[in-house]
């Protein structure tokens, strides 16, 4: 109950914040426009989506085997592989590496898995300073906020809000709300830190089982700096990010940035295959790969819900979601917001905590229509709506049935009685049309912004009969 109240409260404040409304609207309009223009050929887009979906489906169908292969190849390449069943374990693995190197500072590239782990918070509690080096992440870290979008973490802030934040946090820098000046300031602050940091952390976009290669897509070069300058590089990722072979990468790389930001290719694309070799002049001396489960192997077991794990984190579903565009990312209260978050988060953390998210959708289908790996998001939202109220307690989604409300269940059971008995339905519509003047003008939430619908004098059943349309 509390989670529902909290969710509605966050939604309410977002909807009444004109800054949030206009920041998201403008940003999402821009992202939708860019995506659309980066795929001028609808047939090519469909072919690419089919191919990308096929690659991800293949990888997931062989997940255990490919993960073992990935571990073997990485180990052969000198990458140390760590397995974490829970976020606590993953955090402890990172802390342990930090401690072994006596490292007090971690510089981070963008990683949604580290957000899922709440790694910054954990490390800070253990005396390790974390510094986000992705510009958007840097901004939200300064503001003490979580990211509001998986690709553009600070998209909820306007340029002026960022300028005010910078002048508050760095009083020595002159105030400016010019984007280039702000970027330059952040760059100068971060550049010094890169050279001082003993350990760098990054996420992983694709992990190639065939070769043990970690692929990282980014635009700012901070990802490359995090993974090459500090003597130790830790990559954290979910176990679902594995793909079978190197030749799977070009199609995915061709669709990911176009779906995300409308770019044909990102400024940087890193393929990390080993620590620095003896004859090499740069690169980290140690590379670690932390593979996090955190509920993913449970999602993997359901033949329909497994599609959730295809996600390549492009953010197109949120960019095109009319609900996300209005309430923004923070209202969801989850690490990953938007349509993909609404199917993923309840499966990971449970429906007790995120039971409202699958209902916060009109099922308009925009998310599924743009998904580069064809995740049937609306169908999975619908499935989770079932999971949240079903009573038989079979199946793997945690918190199954936790959102079942006896009052609502009684309404649906009466609805069934009425609509599964045609004679009763006809009697009901005859009464409703006959007594239509009794229908109140106020119908709860509906009539707060709408007038009440008017019941017709005669139902279509009656009209059809009177106009002589045959029954059989």
């Amino acid at each position, binding site marked *: 109950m509390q989670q529902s109240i909290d969710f509605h409260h966050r939604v309410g404040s977002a909807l009444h914040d004109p800054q949030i409304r206009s920041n998201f609207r403008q940003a999402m309009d821009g992202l939708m426009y860019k995506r659309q223009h980066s795929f001028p050929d609808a047939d090519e887009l469909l072919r690419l989506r089919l191919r990308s979906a096929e690659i991800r489906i293949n990888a997931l169908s062989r997940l255990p085997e490919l993960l073992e292969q990935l571990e073997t190849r990485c180990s052969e390449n000198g990458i140390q592989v760590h397995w974490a069943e829970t976020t606590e374990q993953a955090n402890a693995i990172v802390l342990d590496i930090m401690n072994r190197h006596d490292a007090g500072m971690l510089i981070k590239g963008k990683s949604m898995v580290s957000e899922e782990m709440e790694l910054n918070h954990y490390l800070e509690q253990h005396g390790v300073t974390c510094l986000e080096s992705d510009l958007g992440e840097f901004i939200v870290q300064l503001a003490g906020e979580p990211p509001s979008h998986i690709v553009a973490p600070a998209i909820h802030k306007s340029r002026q809000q960022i300028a005010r934040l910078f002048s508050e946090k760095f009083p020595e820098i002159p105030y400016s709300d010019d984007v280039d000046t702000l970027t330059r300031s952040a760059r100068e602050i971060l550049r010094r830190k890169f050279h001082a940091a003993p350990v760098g952390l990054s996420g992983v976009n694709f992990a190639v089982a065939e070769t043990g290669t970690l692929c990282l897509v980014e635009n700012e070069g901070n990802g490359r700096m995090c993974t090459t300058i500090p003597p130790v590089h830790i990559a954290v990722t979910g176990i679902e990010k594995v793909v079978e072979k190197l030749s799977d990468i070009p199609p995915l790389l061709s669709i990911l940035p176009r779906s995300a930001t409308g770019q044909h290719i990102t400024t940087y694309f890193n393929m990390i295959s080993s620590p620095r070799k003896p004859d090499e002049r740069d690169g980290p001396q140690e590379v670690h790969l932390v593979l996090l489960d955190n509920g993913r192997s449970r999602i993997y077991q359901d033949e329909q819900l497994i599609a959730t794990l295809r996600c390549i984190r492009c953010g197109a579903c949120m960019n095109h979601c009319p609900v996300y565009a209005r309430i923004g990312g923070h209202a969801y209260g989850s690490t990953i917001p938007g349509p993909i978050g609404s199917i993923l988060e309840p499966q990971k953390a449970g429906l007790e905590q995120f039971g409202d998210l699958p209902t916060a959708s009109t099922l308009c289908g925009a998310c599924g229509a743009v998904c580069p790996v064809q995740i049937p998001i609306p169908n999975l939202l619908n499935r989770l709506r079932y999971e949240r109220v079903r009573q038989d307690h079979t199946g793997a989604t945690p918190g199954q049935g936790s959102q079942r409300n006896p009052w609502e269940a009684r309404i649906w059971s009466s609805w069934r009685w009425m609509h*599964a008995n045609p004679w009763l339905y006809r009697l009901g519509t005859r009464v409703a049309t006959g007594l239509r003047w009794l229908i109140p003008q106020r119908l709860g939430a509906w009539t707060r912004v709408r007038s009440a619908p008017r019941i017709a004098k005669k139902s279509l059943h009656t009209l059809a009969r009177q106009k002589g349309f045959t029954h059989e």
Partner: protein
Amino acid sequence: MSLRTNYPGKPERVYFFGTCLIDLLYPEAGLAGMQLIQREGVQVIFPQNQTCCGQPAWNSGYRNEARSVALTQMQCFQQEFPIVVPSGSCAGMLREHYPEMFSGTPQHSAALAFSSRVYELTEFLTQVLRVKLEDLGKPVKVALHVSCSARREMGVSGAHQALLQQLKNVELLEPERKEECCGFGGTFAVKHAEISAAMVEEKANALLATGAETLVSGDCGCLMNITGNLNHRKRDLPGCHIATFLWERTNAAEH
């Protein structure tokens, strides 16, 4: 453009699935749809035992309730006639979701056979009956709102448009963000009333901004939502179902 690619020739008889929303709130739209088909020389059967496609319960997670209502529908459309539905949303339910709803049950093959006979009304008029419409009405500016199910699930936004474009005195106007949802979403409008309110208000404003005199849609859920908001704000943009609009403009008795 429609998602279905193979269309049969003109049948002798069809079933009409009126939908529960049309039954009680917009019966004239259902009647118009039946008359549009009948005018082409096709006999229209309206089974009196039909009630609702089951979508409200299905989308609320009450799958057993939805299934039992769906079974009632399947029982009253048993002969091999096409089933025409004046709603993208309900047609999408019958065509796309019945097979999923009955998967793993003894009725699965019956559901597959049933769903393969389902057509959305404008799809049926353009692709199967290939209607030619003669516009008898006065010049009018019309804004079309295509429901999300009609657009994405059924792929019939082109059919909506093609029919309206056959009417020579109709000027078709395009609202900004035409592909965006109006915020109805069935129980969503009540469960997440505030988000729905923000969505419908922006949709209504976009439609008003076209300067249209009439709003036309192929789905009564969207119509009830959008015109409900327009009426509430006392804005003068009447709306009607596309079947009503087509019938009124092409039926000699009305002019």
